[in-house]
């Protein structure tokens, strides 16, 4: 088990964001966490990352209790909806950041950093843009830089928080297919948060639907489309069902 949440709860004041959530992700799996806004999916991701602390329950990463670990020690890669690139650094420096801030003992040499960043930029197909600043890139390019930056620290788990939410529909489609290919190449355990059920069904190995701070159902896209567990899911997934022919063809 790569990531396991056991009876995790989190509230912000009166608002319950996570209510006794159990959830597991297998090694190398790409799981989509889908649900309407306010359903707690982003909070779940931030709890796994250590950016929020749960009020109750346990988060395990590779079987190890993550409670004593800060976000920097969990070996996770986090990609934010609005990219969160360091605006005053070039693309190259953004990607190199995670390597440069390592403690002296474990820090790679300048040559090693250069080679690693070059490989990563090639992986996200941005080899020629290393000297640019984030503001000089399109949204899709910025998000690929953010992905390369997250992968630079060789994370055990990749956490994507609405990574395509700020992009226009066409770019979103392209990037989502590209992400699937990338995942097949890199094979890192990935949790993708999205409010777009079509996106979730198209990209993920498994889809978990969140509703009112709980995980309502988990399954492959085909399973979810065949048998929805409650009326909410039915209506939420209805839009996917309508355009599901292509998806079904992929999963049957």
């Amino acid at each position: 088990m790569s990531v396991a949440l056991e009876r995790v709860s989190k509230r912000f004041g009166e608002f319950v964001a996570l209510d006794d959530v159990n959830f597991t992700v297998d090694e190398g799996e790409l799981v989509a966490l889908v649900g309407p806004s306010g359903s707690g999916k982003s909070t779940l991701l931030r709890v796994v990352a250590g950016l929020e602390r749960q009020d109750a329950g346990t988060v395990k990463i590779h079987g190890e209790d993550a409670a004593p670990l800060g976000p920097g020690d969990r070996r996770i890669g986090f990609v934010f909806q609005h990219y969160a690139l360091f605006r005053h650094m070039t693309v190259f420096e953004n990607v190199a950041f995670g390597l440069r801030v390592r403690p002296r003992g474990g820090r790679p040499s300048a040559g090693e950093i250069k080679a690693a960043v070059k490989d990563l930029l090639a992986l996200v197909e941005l080899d020629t843009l290393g000297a640019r600043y984030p503001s000089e890139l399109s949204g899709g390019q910025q998000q690929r830089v953010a992905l390369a930056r997250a992968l630079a620290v060789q994370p055990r788990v990749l956490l994507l928080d609405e990574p395509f939410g700020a992009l226009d529909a066409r770019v979103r489609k392209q990037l989502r297919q590209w992400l699937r290919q990338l995942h097949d190449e890199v094979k890192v355990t990935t949790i993708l948060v999205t409010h777009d059920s079509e996106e979730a069904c198209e990209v993920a190995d498994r889809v978990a639907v969140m509703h009112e701070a709980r995980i309502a159902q988990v399954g492959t896209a085909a399973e979810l489309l065949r048998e929805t567990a409650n009326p909410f899911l039915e209506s939420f997934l209805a839009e996917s069902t309508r355009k599901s022919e292509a998806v079904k063809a992929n999963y049957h």
Partner: protein
Amino acid sequence: MSTTIAPPAARHGIPPGPRAKRHTVTTATGESATARWILIGTALAYLFLFLGLPLFVVFEEALKKGVGAYFTALRDPELLHALRLTLLVAGIAVPLNVMFGLAAAWAITKGRVRGHALLVALADLPLAVSPVIAGLTFMLLFGMQGWFGPWLKAHDIQIAFTVTAVVLATIFVTLPFVARELIPLMEEQGVTEEEAAVTLGASGWQIFRRVTLPNIRWGLLYGVVLCNARAMGEFGAVSVVSGRIRGQTTTLPLHIEILYNEYDFTAAFAASSLLAMLAVVTLAAKHLLERSHHAARARLIQEQQERQS
């Protein structure tokens, strides 16, 4: 010499009529050229009257009795002492308030500290209170009859009417400038870059040094300039707490007032010109820093384009 080029209408003998009027230049906001010139003219006249003219008068008065008299006045030991004291006070107050401003802005915007509205209001207090009152408050605390007076006296510590008091009063008066500049800026920038840095394994100091500080450097610089200008120019609070001991606790602004009251106009305005020049140097330093930054940036973009083509 005859003109060979004439506007087409003139060449064809057509008098400029209503057609020409349609081509009157208007701006995006739609006001006419006349309105624009009135606005610009008013602004310029205002600037000249309230900023340019006083600055000019300072130098004019200082040099009235000739360059020789000007430099003689500047060599006066008391004036030089006042200049050194002013630089010393600014040299202590500005770095301390930079540290305070950074800490306060960080706590308020990034640290989710409870009761931050109160902290913001408190940081604004020195702007709202008259400096004279601030000075009197310090006297109430540290003066002979003040709260800490007996204790200070028992331990043989003198604060009122010393350089220490001048420094304390200046710190109080200039406290808001850096924080005020940084809080809105950091609020707008949010915390996601810091969150990204922490997930990448950066320590608190690395995040501050490599992510937060570079993002706020221009705001910080502007805050430092404002803080410095006020620290060097402060009169009211310093006037009260210093006791105006000539050649000991008089900063430049206090010294200028003393000279002026003694009808020594050449010396008063010579000292004023020093203060004005300090202000100009501060602003010029800020401008140069900004320019070199933009130039470096432009060079980088050019190099990139050359590499790609």
